[in-house]
C-alpha cells in the first residue's frame, strides 16, 4: 500500500512489483540515534554514531558498508544532537558522493525507533524495499543474497515484510550474554522456510524453561529452536513496515514491539524471515562491551575492508605492522616505549619514555607521558596523559587530561574534557563527566530506561551486590557539589543507577572479573543442584495424564484464590508501610484503591483485607494477656478508624469484615478467639460495624454447620441485647 502511495510515479499493483523493484534505487534508512542511554555520559555531548570506533566515527563504517553493498540512497534519521550529525556528514563529504545520495531527516521529538519510522513514513521518501540499520552497525556483508531471497519471498507472499540478518554466536554459558554484551537470544525458526516464529531477547532468567506456544507445532511439524544466534540488527524491510509502524502507533522498539507484535498477531499474517550470514561480519554497537568487542574485531581484521589501514572515510592512514599493530606514520614515539600487540596509534600522537601500551586504541594528537601503562583502553583524540598514569580497560574521550600519577580502574569511562587530578584513583566502572548526572531521566529516555531497570531481574547474579555496594559507597563518598576527581580535577562522578548496578560489569569495556565469573558459576551450579528446578515446572509426565485437561476449571478457581491471597498480602504490606512511615489515610486509600483495581477485587475485599491488616498489627504489638491484646486492638482501631470506616460504606462490607474476623479467629490469629465478642462489641461501640450487620451476620449463620457457629454462639448474648435494643427503639 505504501509502495503505491510512496511511488509517486504511478507504480502498478503487486504484479509489477518486480519491475518496480528493479527501477527503484536501493534505499536504506540509518537511525542515527539509538534511543537508549547506554553510552551516557558520553552521549550527552556527542551523538553515539559520531563516537570514534578505532579512530573513525561509527557512522562512517555504516555508510561505507552501505555504499559498498550497492545501496544508492540513504536517509539518515537524526534526532539527538542532530546538528552535530549533519555537520559531520557535511564536513566529511558524504553528501557529495556520486551514485550514493545521503539525505538527512531531522526530528527533535522522536523518542524511539517507532517514532522515527512513522516520521519517515510521512515523508513518503521510501519507494521500495529498504535496508533498516542503526548508525552504529559495522558490517561487511553483501546484501545481494539476502535481498534476492527477500524479493523472491515477497513475490510469492506479499506478507513477508521483513528479513532479519542473523549470525552464529553463542552466548556465554556463564554470563548468558553474547560477546557483544547483549542478552542471550532465543529464536524459533522454521528450518525449511527460515521464517521467524518466536523471538525472545529478554527472557526471564529465573525461569529454567522456555515456553513456546503449542500452536507453533500445528502448522509446522518441525521447528528449530536456536540459542546460538545473534541478531545483527540489519533488516531488509518492505515498505509495509513503515505503514505498520504508523498503524500501530504504540510500536516503539524495533524488536520488542514490532517483531514481537508481528509474531503474535496472526490476523494480518505478516511474516518475518531470517537470513543467516556465515563468513561475513555484521554487528551492532549496543553497549560498551560491544564497543570493545567490535573494536577488537576491527583491529583483527574480521571486518575487512573496514580496517584501520584501508582508508574508507574519516580514518587517517595507518600502517599495519606485525602483531596487529597499526601506527600512523607521523607519531612521536620514544625508543624506550613498548607498544604491544593489537594496538592502534593515531597520527600526531606522542608517546614518552618507558610507556607501555597494549591492546588499546589511541586517537589522534594525544600526548602520552613517560612511565604510563595503558592496557585495553580506548583513548580518543587530543587526550593528555601525564607521567606515571595507569589505565586499564577504560574509555577516555576527547580532550581528557589525566594529571600525573592518576589511575583508572577497569571499566571507567571519562567523558569529554574531564580532568583527573594528581594521583587520583578512579574507581572501577565509574563514569566521569563535566555534566552533572541528570537527577531525573528526561522523558525521552524514560521509555528505554524503564526497560533497563526491568533488566535487573534478568541478572542471575545476586552475589555481585556485595562488591557493588562497596563500589557504591566509594562513589557516593565525595560531595556531589564539588568536583570529585582529585586535586585539580574537573568532573563529576556519576552515581551508578540502581538498575545499572549489577549490569555495569556486564556491559563495560573491561573483561568480566574472575571473581564475578566464579560467583555466577557457583550460583548456576547451585541452581543446577536444586533437584526440582525444572521438576516443578515439568512434572514427571505421568502425573499429567491426558485427563489433566479436565482440571482446568479447578485451576481457574485456584487462580482466583491465589489472586485474592496476593491481594491481601499486598494490602497488608501497604498498610504496614503506612504504619511504619506514617503515611496519611488518604494515601493509603489511594494505594489500596489502585491495588483493588489491578487485582479486580470488590470493595468488600478491601474492607476485609484492611481489617485483617489492622488486627494483625494489633496482634503484633507486644502483649501478655488477652486483656492487653484487647487494649492493643482498641488503640489500633482508634487510630485507623477513619480508614476502616472509609471502606465500610454499606452493610455488605461490614458483614464481610465480621466474616473475615471470624476466619482470622479460626485460622491465622487464634489469640483473638476468646476476645471475639469483646472486640465485636467494641467495633459496634465505635460505629465501625452497625447492628444491622451483626444481626444479618447472625441470621446468615443460622443455617450453617455447628462448627461454623462457634462465634455466633459466643456472641449470642450480645446479639440478643442488640435485638432487644432495637425492639426498644421500635417501641419508642
Amino acid at each position, binding site marked *: 500500500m505504501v509502495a503505491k502511495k510512496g511511488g509517486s510515479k504511478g507504480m502498478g499493483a503487486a504484479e509489477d512489483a518486480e519491475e518496480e523493484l528493479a527501477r527503484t534505487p536501493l534505499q536504506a534508512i540509518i537511525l542515527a540515534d539509538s534511543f537508549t542511554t547506554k553510552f551516557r555520559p558520553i552521549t550527552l555531548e556527542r551523538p553515539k554514531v559520531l563516537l570514534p570506533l578505532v579512530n573513525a566515527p561509527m557512522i562512517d563504517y555504516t555508510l561505507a558498508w552501505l555504499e559498498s553493498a550497492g545501496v544508492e540512497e540513504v536517509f539518515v534519521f537524526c534526532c539527538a544532537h542532530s546538528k552535530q550529525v549533519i555537520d559531520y556528514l557535511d564536513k566529511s563529504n558524504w553528501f557529495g558522493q556520486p551514485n550514493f545520495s545521503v539525505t538527512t531527516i531531522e526530528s527533535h521529538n522522536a523518542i524511539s525507533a517507532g517514532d522515527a519510522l512513522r516520521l519517515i513514513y510521512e515523508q513518503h521518501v521510501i519507494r521500495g524495499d529498504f535496508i533498516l540499520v542503526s548508525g552504529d552497525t559495522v558490517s561487511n556483508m553483501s546484501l545481494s543474497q539476502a535481498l534476492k531471497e527477500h524479493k523472491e519471498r515477497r513475490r510469492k507472499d506479499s506478507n513477508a515484510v521483513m528479513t532479519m540478518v542473523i549470525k552464529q554466536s553463542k552466548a556465554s*554459558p556463564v554470563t548468558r550474554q553474547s560477546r557483544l554484551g547483549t542478552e542471550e537470544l532465543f529464536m*524459533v525458526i522454521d528450518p525449511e522456510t527460515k521464517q521467524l516464529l518466536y523471538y525472545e531477547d529478554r527472557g526471564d532468567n529465573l525461569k529454567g524453561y522456555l515456553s513456546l506456544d503449542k500452536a507453533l*507445532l500445528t502448522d509446522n511439524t*518441525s521447528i*528449530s*529452536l536456536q540459542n546460538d544466534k545473534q541478531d545483527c540488527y540489519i533488516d531488509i524491510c518492505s515498505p509495509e513496515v513503515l505503514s505498520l509502524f504508523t498503524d500501530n502507533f504504540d510500536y516503539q522498539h524495533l524488536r520488542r514491539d514490532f517483531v514481537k507484535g508481528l509474531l503474535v498477531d496472526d490476523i494480518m499474517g505478516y511474516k518475518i524471515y531470517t537470513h543467516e550470514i556465515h563468513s561475513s561480519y555484521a554487528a551492532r554497537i549496543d553497549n560498551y562491551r560491544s564497543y570493545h568487542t567490535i573494536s577488537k574485531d576491527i583491529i583483527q581484521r574480521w571486518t575487512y575492508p573496514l580496517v584501520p589501514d584501508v582508508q574508507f572515510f574519516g580514518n587517517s592512514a595507518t600502517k599495519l605492522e606485525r602483531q596487529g599493530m597499526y601506527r600512523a606514520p607521523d607519531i612521536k614515539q620514544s625508543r624506550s616505549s613498548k607498544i604491544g600487540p593489537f594496538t592502534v596509534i593515531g597520527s600526531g600522537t606522542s608517546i614518552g619514555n618507558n610507556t607501555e601500551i597494549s591492546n588499546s586504541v589511541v586517537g589522534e594528537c594525544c600526548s602520552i607521558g613517560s612511565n604510563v601503562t595503558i592496557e585495553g583502553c580506548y583513548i580518543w583524540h587530543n587526550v593528555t596523559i601525564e607521567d606515571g598514569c595507569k589505565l586499564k580497560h577504560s574509555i577516555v574521550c576527547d580532550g581528557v587530561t589525566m594529571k600525573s600519577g592518576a589511575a583508572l580502574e577497569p571499566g571507567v569511562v571519562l567523558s569529554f574534557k574531564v580532568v583527573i587530578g594528581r594521583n587520583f584513583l578512579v574507581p572501577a566502572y565509574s563514569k566521569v563527566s563535566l555534566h552533572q548526572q541528570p537527577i531525573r531521566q528526561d522523558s525521552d529516555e524514560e521509555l528505554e530506561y524503564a526497560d533497563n531497570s526491568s533488566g535487573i531481574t534478568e541478572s542471575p547474579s545476586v552475589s555481585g551486590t556485595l562488591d557493588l555496594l562497596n563500589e557504591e559507597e566509594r562513589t557516593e563518598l565525595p560531595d556531589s557539589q564539588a568536583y570529585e576527581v582529585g586535586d585539580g580535577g574537573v568532573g563529576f562522578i556519576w552515581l551508578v543507577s540502581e538498575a545499572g548496578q549489577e549490569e555495569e560489569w556486564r556491559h563495560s569495556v573491561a573483561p568480566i572479573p574472575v571473581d564475578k565469573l566464579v560467583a555466577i558459576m557457583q550460583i548456576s551450579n547451585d541452581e*543446577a543442584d536444586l533437584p526440582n528446578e525444572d*521438576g516443578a515446572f515439568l512434572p514427571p*509426565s505421568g502425573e499429567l495424564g491426558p485427563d489433566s485437561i479436565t482440571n482446568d476449571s479447578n485451576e481457574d478457581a485456584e487462580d482466583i484464590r491465589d489472586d485474592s491471597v496476593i491481594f491481601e498480602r499486598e494490602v497488608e504490606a501497604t498498610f504496614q508501610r503506612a504504619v511504619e512511615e506514617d503515611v496519611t489515610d488518604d494515601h493509603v486509600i489511594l494505594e489500596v484503591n489502585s491495588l483493588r483495581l489491578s487485582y479486580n477485587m470488590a470493595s468488600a475485599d478491601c474492607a476485609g483485607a484492611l481489617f485483617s491488616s489492622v488486627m494483625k498489627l494489633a496482634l503484633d504489638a507486644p502483649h501478655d494477656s488477652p486483656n492487653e491484646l484487647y487494649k492493643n486492638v482498641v488503640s489500633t482501631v482508634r487510630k485507623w478508624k477513619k480508614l476502616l470506616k472509609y471502606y465500610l460504606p454499606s452493610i455488605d462490607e461490614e458483614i464481610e469484615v465480621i466474616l473475615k474476623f471470624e476466619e482470622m479467629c479460626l485460622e491465622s490469629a487464634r489469640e483473638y478467639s476468646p476476645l471475639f465478642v469483646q472486640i465485636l462489641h467494641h467495633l459496634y461501640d465505635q460505629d465501625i460495624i452497625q447492628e444491622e450487620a451483626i444481626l444479618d451476620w447472625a441470621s446468615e449463620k443460622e443455617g450453617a454447620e455447628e462448627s461454623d457457629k462457634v462465634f455466633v454462639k459466643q456472641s449470642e448474648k450480645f446479639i440478643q441485647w442488640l435485638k432487644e435494643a432495637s425492639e426498644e427503639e421500635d417501641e419508642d
Partner: protein
Amino acid sequence: MDFQVVVLAGGFSKSLVPLVSKDVPKALLPVANRPVLSYVLEHFEENNLKDFIVVVEGESAALLVGGWISNAYVDRLHVEVAAVPEDVGTAGALRAIDRHLTAKDILVVSGDLISDIPPGAVAAAHRRHDAAVTAMLCSTPISGPSESGSSGGKDKAKKPARHNIIGLDPTKQFLLHVAAGAEVEKDIRVQKSILRAVGQMEIRADLMDAHMYAFKRTVLQEVLNKKETFLSLRRDVLPYLVRSQLRSELSQNGAVAEENGNSKGVSDSTIMLSQLLTNASTQSFHELYALGPDGSALSPRKTHKCCVHIASKSNYCVRLNSIQAFSDINRDVIGDASHLSGYSFSPQNNIIHPTAELGSKTTVGPHCMLGEGSQMGDKCSVKKSVIGRHCRIGSNVKVVNSVIMDHVTIGDGCSIQGSVVCSNVQLQERVVLRDCQVGAGYVVSSGSEHKGESLAKKEKQ
C-alpha cells in the same frame, strides 16, 4: 552383543476389548494369522538377538504366552517368560524383573511393535555414544494407524493431540526434549539449560516414539530403584533421563568402579575402546558442558547422554495398541508391508493356504490371506482381508477390509466390511457388519445388521 532383550508383552489390554479375551491376551492377537509377539521375536532373531525376557501382565496371560512360546520357539530361542502383576506399568514390570537383568545394556521393546527397523541400529547408536538411554523414533506412518481412524475427522487434523513433541540436537543424534502431545497443555516448555548447552534444538512433532529403548542396565536399575513412583518408561523414566541429562543424578562412576572390581582386565580394554570411540568423534555438547565454561571446571559436571535412532521414512513401524491399529496392521502386513509377514505371496499378490477350499465363482483379491483349512462357498468375494484357519464361510459372502480369526462360521449372504471377527464366532445368514468388532464365541443372529458396534459375550467370571 551383550544386549539383553526385554519384551513387554502386556496382558489383557482393555483398549483392545473385545479382541482380547481371557483366552487370547494381547500378545497372541493374530496378525496375518500369527501372534503379534512372533513378529517381535523373529525380527530380533533375524538380527541375532536370541536371549529374551518376555514380561507378561497377569499369571494367566503369562501361562498362555509361555505355552505358545515354548511350542513355537523351542530350540530356537532362549526365552524366559516372567509374569508381573497387572497395572504395574512398564517401569513397574522392569522393576519386577530387576534381578534377571544382567547384561551391560538392555533393549526394551514393546511386544506389540511391528517393525522392520533393525534393532542393531538402535544398539549401535547406543554404544557409539555410551548413552544412558537410546530411544527409537520413527516418522509418523503414512497410513497413520491411530490417526486415520473413522473417529479422525477434521478437528483431529488440526491439533495433533497424539503427537509426541521431541527435541533433537542439530545432528539428530541426541534427545534433548520429550513430551507426549497430550501432556503439553498450552506451551511447550523447553529447558533453557539444555538449550544453552546445545545452542540449537530442533523440535519436531512428526516423530513417534516406537517403544524400543536401549538402556544402560546400571542406569535403568538405579532409576527404577530410586524413583519408586515411576510407572511408565515412556512417560516417566525417559522424560526424567532426558530432563536431567546435564545434571545427572546417576552414579555412573560408581557403577564403572564396580565393574572394574569385577573384571579388571576386561574393563580396561572396554574403557580404552570407549575412549577411542569418543575421541574419534568430535566432542558432543555433553562433554563440553561437563568440562565447564573454561574447559576446566573444578569438578566436572555429571552428564549422561540420551540418544535417538531415527528410522528412515521407508521403514515400517507401527504399534498394535488400538482396534484401529489392529485392522490397519493386518491390512498392511498382507499389503504394503508384506515383507514383514514372512509369507510368500502368490502371483495374485495374495496368500491362499493350499488346504483352503474355494467355491465356484469365488474371488479372493490381492492383499488377502486365507488360512489353513478354511472353506468358502460359491460366489464369495474377499478383498483386503485376512481370514483365519478352519473358517467355514457360506455362499454369497462379501468380506472387505476385515480380519476374520480362526474357526469362524459365516452363513450365506453375509456382508462384512471394516470389521474384526474373533475366533469361534458364528455369523448366521445374511448378517451385515460394518466397522464392528465381534468378540470370541459370539453368535450374531441371522439377518441382523450392525454398524460401528462392538459385540461380545458377557465375560463369565
